[in-house]
């Protein structure tokens, strides 16, 4: 078909070799400590930039608490700006203040109210109630990340979507395939943003009843999407949580760890 054409220089396709990839990982794709020691140990350091992590669990198992905790820790340690997309108005500044109070004394170098103000200004919270609003927000995010102008020196480094399943579950299923295609499109956009702009993306998922044990929502098509899938469950009436790895790019699945969640 194209024999007569002069050879185009790869047509814009970027091939890299193994050493380039390793260099990229070593220089740019670092780990974020999350502040929850149990999860940090389980994940071998924390959330990784460039990866899409899913946190799934039943209601009131500690998912939102974990998300708020991650956001606070990243913001408190000057690691960058956090974009928190909230689908159910569960973002609570008072909970963030309580989480910050629990941070060990050694890390405190400034008065509490100054730190609280700084952390709050590093967390951008947006309410997103449907899939189209999510597409719009991600579009704007991509434009602002592509923008070369330095906007005050603070780039977004963590994107949290709590919870993405409440946006996607209503549209998948049913006769038309458009719902699933939107889900996969969102997944591709998130992974592209994570890789190109060195973000760590965290999404939460709820659980539904299956044949027997409850299973994560969003079905089988979603299983292939995240890099890392974590399941969190809380023992009844206590603040001991168990985190289990459902899927990980580096480790075998099945590992779990029990830890105490503050507050």
């Amino acid at each position, binding site marked *: 078909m194209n024999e007569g054409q002069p050879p185009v220089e790869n047509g814009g396709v970027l091939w890299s070799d193994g050493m380039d990839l390793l260099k990229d990982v070593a220089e740019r794709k670092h780990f974020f400590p999350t502040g929850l020691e149990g999860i940090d140990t389980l994940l071998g350091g924390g959330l990784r930039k460039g990866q899409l992590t899913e946190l799934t669990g039943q209601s009131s198992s500690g998912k939102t608490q974990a998300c708020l905790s991650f956001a606070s820790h990243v913001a408190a340690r000057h690691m960058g700006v956090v974009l928190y997309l909230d689908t159910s108005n569960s973002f609570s500044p008072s909970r963030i203040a309580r989480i910050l109070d629990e941070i060990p004394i050694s890390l405190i170098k400034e008065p509490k109210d100054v730190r609280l103000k700084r952390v709050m200004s590093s967390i951008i919270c947006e309410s997103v109630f449907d899939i189209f609003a999510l597409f719009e927000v991600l579009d704007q995010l991509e434009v602002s990340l592509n923008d070369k102008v330095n906007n005050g020196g603070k780039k977004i480094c963590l994107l949290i979507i709590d919870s993405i399943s409440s946006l996607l579950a209503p549209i998948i299923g049913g006769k038309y395939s458009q719902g699933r295609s939107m889900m996969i499109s969102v997944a591709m956009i998130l992974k592209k943003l994570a890789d190109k702009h060195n973000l760590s993306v965290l999404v939460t998922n709820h659980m539904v009843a299956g044949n027997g044990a409850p299973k994560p929502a969003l079905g089988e*098509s979603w299983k292939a999407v995240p890099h890392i899938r974590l399941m969190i469950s809380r023992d009844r009436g206590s603040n001991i949580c168990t985190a289990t790895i459902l899927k990980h790019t*580096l480790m075998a699945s099945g590992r779990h760890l029990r830890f105490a969640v503050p507050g």
Partner: protein
Amino acid sequence: MAGETGYGPREWLAVDETAAAFLSRSLSTRPPILLPPPLHRAPLRPGNVVEIAGPSNSGKSQLLLMAAVQCILPKEWEGVYFGGLGKAVMYIDLDCRFDVLRLAHILRKRIMQGCGSAHPASEEFEKDVSKDKSYSFQDTLFSDCMKHFLYVRCYNSSELIAALKSLNSQSEARGKVLGIGIYFLMLDSIGAFYWIDRAPQSTTESKGNVISFQSITENVVQEIRKFLHLQPVLVLVTKAPIYGDGITASNDFQRGSSKYMLEDSTASRYSKREEERNGSYREYMPSAWQTLVTHRIKLQDLEQESGFSSEQDSEVLSVHTSEWLHPSLNTKEKFYIKDDGVGLIQ
């Protein structure tokens, strides 16, 4: 006509090549490839297209990485035998979940194993000199091998087709630099864009130019065939099943699914639960793809038998099964995946 070119009927009837010569020529230019288990059961040669199918978490990407490491390791390096193929691998990532650290981990383990068996007494020498020498030897080999691994990421079907079109020029360019040729081509998850491509296009710029999943797949198949003509390589493709009630019936799907169902019904050892699961698997790849694929292996994750523990640590490892569908070998093999590799369970 005979008189013009001096090519008479006698010459036309003369033998070009005997069967023995043909066989030996074909075996030398396209030698059989031995892949790590569980892919070792079927004889594979460059030019074959192997489809590794299985649900999520059944070990497909792990098998690809093992095969890649087998390819990029040299057969022998500075006197140490590694048993690899010593060629380059091109990896097209459609799932965008490839983790280079895992590849690096597996490669380092293989290199250490190779060095360990070559110098079994090296553990006794705790002196820095020999340690440094062995580290730099391993590091140089490691970076050499990693340079033989070529990678590209595609976020949609158009990028995939562009990447496939650039295969030939890229492999030639890299071949000149590296001095070796491409031997494996890997595609991680051929069905990654299935839902995106199947969604009905509400607005089309040019009338009648609807891009469907079928036409995209035919395009992909055409590009792969073109590349295979110019450079015979072994193609390894992973495929995740698609579960969907919204799959509209078309000739291809019905034909494909009935073929698949027939293979399933001949194996009567499936438990009821597996039957339920298999019932919802449908062959969603069009017939153009199915004619391209020459070998098929199916992987599954055994959830019930999670009580297998390895000898070293008491961790519970997940057990997977593999089954060659084409060529149909009628045996299911069990294997487990550790952090650094795959082991067969006898």
